[in-house]
């Protein structure tokens, strides 16, 4: 049986695009035929669940019952990949809980593949989280996701500041999520469908939709860029899946 894979997507700071990145991950695994389930910790009303209702469950990660729901089922349910969208402010407590229940030890000993997508916004407050999160990252794949929610440069113009954040953690891998056109983003919000369905001009129940060709084009272009980053870090290898020959989003 394949090793269970847990991907935590989070940040302590709000508004940095955690759910957006989670959605691109779910679309990526879907396009690569990797069975995936997701947990949305934005209890009681989850944004991720609105876009991926069939595979997403809303949980309150601070309760033991819901922690059991996620982690006690890792070896018993069929999707081998579990994506957890951790709401703002809960990243550090969630990682501390994972340490306390012995999950991080299990990851370190190789029983579980554990990855953290730490979503970073263009602010010092956001970057300051890196050092704190890094303390939990032994045995985990740690991805620093630079999410370009605006036209920021993530302090690349100031090399000492940039290096102090991005080159301090030895085993962390940088990922870049480019900025999506605002109107395109809003149109997908209104449609409440996964990015892939939007690109394919489909509604929530796979019915034909009538989204703007221009906005679909922007989303397709953006999604292709995001996925090329996932290809670069060999995400399908990480989850132990063989890559699909043709992905639906790239047809």
């Amino acid at each position: 049986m394949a090793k269970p894979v847990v991907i935590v997507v989070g940040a302590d700071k709000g508004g940095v695009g955690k759910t957006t990145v989670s959605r691109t991950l779910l679309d990526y695994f879907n396009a690569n035929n990797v069975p995936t389930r997701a947990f949305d910790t934005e209890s009681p009303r989850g944004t991720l669940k609105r876009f991926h209702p069939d595979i997403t469950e809303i949980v309150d990660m601070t309760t033991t019952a819901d922690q059991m729901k996620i982690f006690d089922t890792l070896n018993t349910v069929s999707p081998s990949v579990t994506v957890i969208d951790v709401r703002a402010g809960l990243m550090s407590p969630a990682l501390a809980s994972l340490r306390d229940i012995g999950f991080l030890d299990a990851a370190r000993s190789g029983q579980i593949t554990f990855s953290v997508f730490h979503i970073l916004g263009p602010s010092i407050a956001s970057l300051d989280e890196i050092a704190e999160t890094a303390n939990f990252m032994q045995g985990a794949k740690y991805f620093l996701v630079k999410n370009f929610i605006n036209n920021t440069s993530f302090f690349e113009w100031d090399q000492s500041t940039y290096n102090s954040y991005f080159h301090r953690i030895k085993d962390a891998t940088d990922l870049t999520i480019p900025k999506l056109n605002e109107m395109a983003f809003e149109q997908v919000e209104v449609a409440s469908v996964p990015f892939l369905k939007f690109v394919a001009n489909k509604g929530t129940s796979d019915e034909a939709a009538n989204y703007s060709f221009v906005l679909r084009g922007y989303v397709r272009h953006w999604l292709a860029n995001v996925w090329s980053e996932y290809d670069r870090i060999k995400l399908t290898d990480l989850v132990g899946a063989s890559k699909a020959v043709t992905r639906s989003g790239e047809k």
Partner: protein
Amino acid sequence: MSFTPVYIVCSPRPLVGKTMVARLLSEFLLLKNGTVTSFDINLKEPSLLDYLPRLTETAEIDDTYGKMQLMDRLIIDDGEAKVIDLGFHVFDEFFKMCEEIGFIKEAARRHVAPVVLFVADTDRLSMRSHELLRRQIPRSTLITIDNEHILRGELRPEMSAGRMLHIAALPSFLRTYIDRQTFSFTDYLRQERDSSTELHQWIRRNYLSFRELELSLILQNS
């Protein structure tokens, strides 16, 4: 016709005759098909709207909303030919957007046939822009316009290697005559009884070039 042509008349340079080509083409398509929709994205120069106000809609691509208004119409296979007079100031933005949204591929899927009519010049910017288009647009649908009013020297071989459409120069008094906003090429053909006049022949020659271009498109898409 089993496809909808979209003619994009463009150049990265001002005052090279884009609007004149767009006028000629719009009037030709109106004469031949009885209908045409022209878009003026050239509001910073003397533009199509001034000459063909009944056929022309204005469009802007400075923001996403404007892009949607234009491109969501261009991608529709409604059988009605469309002509775009693309201003020099939006040349880069327009083709960057086309690349990003996958316009050429999606158009092919939907039986829409974009044809880029690039009004050539010998300056470095035109060279670079033509090179960009050669990478982005299939060679069969990238037409280089050799406008004798503008081009005095030989074109670089890279530019003239593909398909060309020649527009002969007119004497300056006829140029001034056709530049009047009330002038119509088709009306002139209809009203001028003497078909041997230089202007009559010039218009007919250009209409013939457009007809040949359209025929080659039909063959290509059949």
